[in-house]
């Protein structure tokens, strides 16, 4: 009898637990669907014809013609190339300049003890600065030096605005490396530059990779500065998307397909590297 009742209690507890986790799952999936739905809808709409796209249906007969049309568009190719140019060179330059900056802040010799901290704070506050704040002076100067609507002009802005992110993330990784390792390297004959390249960079690899990924995604998605500083031949994908909406706003299916193509690399990239990204961001947040 007693045994029975224990079993009953156990069963009802298990049932309650199951019910609770079921509710929780429904809630979590509900929120996920809510967030993901616009993206899903955009993705699906790209497989519709323009006529189908006007009506918000989920079930329809898919067609590849819209994607084919958008991908076949030579202007799209141009913008895609522009975006890739900005992402590749921008990321490389940000890392090439940001890593030494972070290294100097952490391990450099300064006259005053508080100097590296001050430098660091300035880098960090730059991240918080809204792009609108610098747009007008930037625009005026760019006009003066004929940098408006040039790929290198935009690249310079992107590098400048994204270096602080590299410094911020890599800084916390560098700070975790024991000082003695560099002293050992110094005695082993390394110059400061060799210490950075052969000791600090390999040891902070995770942080550097995630900083690079983050910068790449940020540049890929950047719209505001790109929109204001570039024109037709040099604009990036997000700018193209905006123009597309202005000029051909009625073509919902094409717009959806083009949007999907423009967010896809970021999504795939992020998905493939989410572990490194999270590790890098968390390290920065907790230890920084």
């Amino acid at each position, binding site marked *: 009898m007693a045994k029975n009742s224990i079993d009953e209690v156990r069963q009802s507890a298990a049932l309650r637990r199951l019910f609770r986790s079921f509710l929780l799952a429904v809630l979590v999936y509900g929120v996920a669907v809510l967030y993901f739905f616009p993206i899903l809808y955009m993705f699906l709409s790209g497989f519709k014809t323009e006529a189908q796209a006007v009506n918000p249906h989920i079930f329809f007969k898919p067609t590849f013609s819209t994607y084919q049309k958008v991908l076949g568009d030579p202007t799209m190719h141009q913008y895609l190339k522009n975006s890739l140019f900005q992402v590749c060179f921008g990321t490389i330059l940000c890392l090439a300049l940001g890593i030494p900056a972070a290294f100097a802040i952490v391990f450099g010799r300064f006259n005053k003890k508080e100097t590296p901290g001050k430098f660091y704070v300035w880098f960090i506050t730059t991240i918080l600065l809204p792009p609108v704040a610098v747009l007008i002076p930037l625009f005026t100067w760019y006009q003066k030096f004929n940098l408006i609507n040039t790929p290198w002009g935009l690249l310079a802005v992107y590098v400048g605005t994204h270096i602080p992110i590299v410094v911020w993330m890599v800084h916390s990784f560098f700070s975790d490396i024991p000082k*003695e*390792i560099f*002293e*050992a*390297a*110094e*005695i082993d004959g*390394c110059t400061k530059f060799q210490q950075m390249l052969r*000791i600090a960079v*390999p040891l902070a690899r995770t942080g550097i990779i995630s900083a690079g990924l983050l910068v790449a995604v940020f540049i890929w998605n950047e719209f505001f500065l790109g929109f204001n500083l570039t024109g037709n031949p040099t604009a990036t994908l997000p700018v193209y998307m905006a123009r597309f909406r202005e000029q051909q706003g009625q073509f919902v299916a094409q717009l959806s397909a083009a949007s999907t193509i423009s967010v896809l690399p970021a999504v795939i990239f992020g998905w493939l590297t989410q572990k490194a990204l999270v590790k890098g961001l968390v390290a920065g947040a907790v230890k920084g």
Partner: protein
Amino acid sequence: MSKVELKNISKVFPDGVRAVDNVTITIENEEFVVLVGPSGCGKSTTLRMVAGLEDISSGELLIDGELMNYREPRDRNIAMVFQNYALYPHMTVYENMAFGLKIKKIPMEEIDRRVKEAARILDIEQYLERRPKALSGGQRQRVAVGRAIVRQPKVFLFDEPLSNLDAKLRVQMRAEIIALHKRLAATIVYVTHDQVEAMTMGDKIVVMKDGLVQQIGAPLHVYHNPANRFVAGFIGSPPINFIKCRLEDRGGSLYAGNIRVADGHAGALRTAVGREIEVGIRPEDFTIAIDGDSGEMSGTVAMIEPLGGENNLHIDADDTGIRFIASLGADESGFLHLGRKARLGIKKNHLKYFDAETGRAFLTE
């Protein structure tokens, strides 16, 4: 040949702290010199100045007669072993040892030869392909030593290399480093806060306190002839006993409290008659009093530390109430149980006398 000379070297940090004050040490070729002292005495800072990791505020550092003050660490031809090993975590043991040689662009065959030779000496051949993470503390410290050996430097610097190891491993590594010193005929500067390490390893020890050198000498010489009260107290385990008293002349014989000063010591102490002094008695300089005549100290046994061969007796003195430690043979002191009265004699020729005010020793050789 590699002789290291520190001439009047001082280190003043930006916040005004004088970590090392006017230190002069000569380290002869192939000599094993140990800098020893309590934490914060400036021993590590001194070593780091020799390495070039700290700037020298004033004074001269010479290696083989060449001024080193303004040379980068890499141009001083030294190798250093750190307390926390400081191995490169992303490299294998082999790469760790080869790294410095690669930087110097030494031919690969030569690097390979030297690394394998060092690995053989240190018995780490089977770990060459491992990362430091996969090694125990003792193995890591061997790799750190190996990294120093392959460089074939003029001077080896050790900064408390055994502090992170457990007691047994420490004794073992101590023996290995001593053997290594003999084998490589190397000039070694070794920093430790452990006076046992200093005593057992060094050809010469430098006792430091508050940035000042207190005494330099062979370990046993320093042990038997401490220059001041601090050195006497720091070197030796269990520590020396101090008894504060007045030096008096009673009918031509000198007395420190109740202790009659040995005739051989009287000459040097005569100037201090009437002054407060401190008498230092090493624990092993007590004897069991056979008859009433030789009993100089008496007290109650308050604690016994049996070490097997001998007992450390903590005794509360009857007259002064001061607790002192006596190391006596286990057999002869076996009858001294807890709470019993003990009457002890003193080997008077071994006593040390210090000025109570300045701490300076009266007897110097």
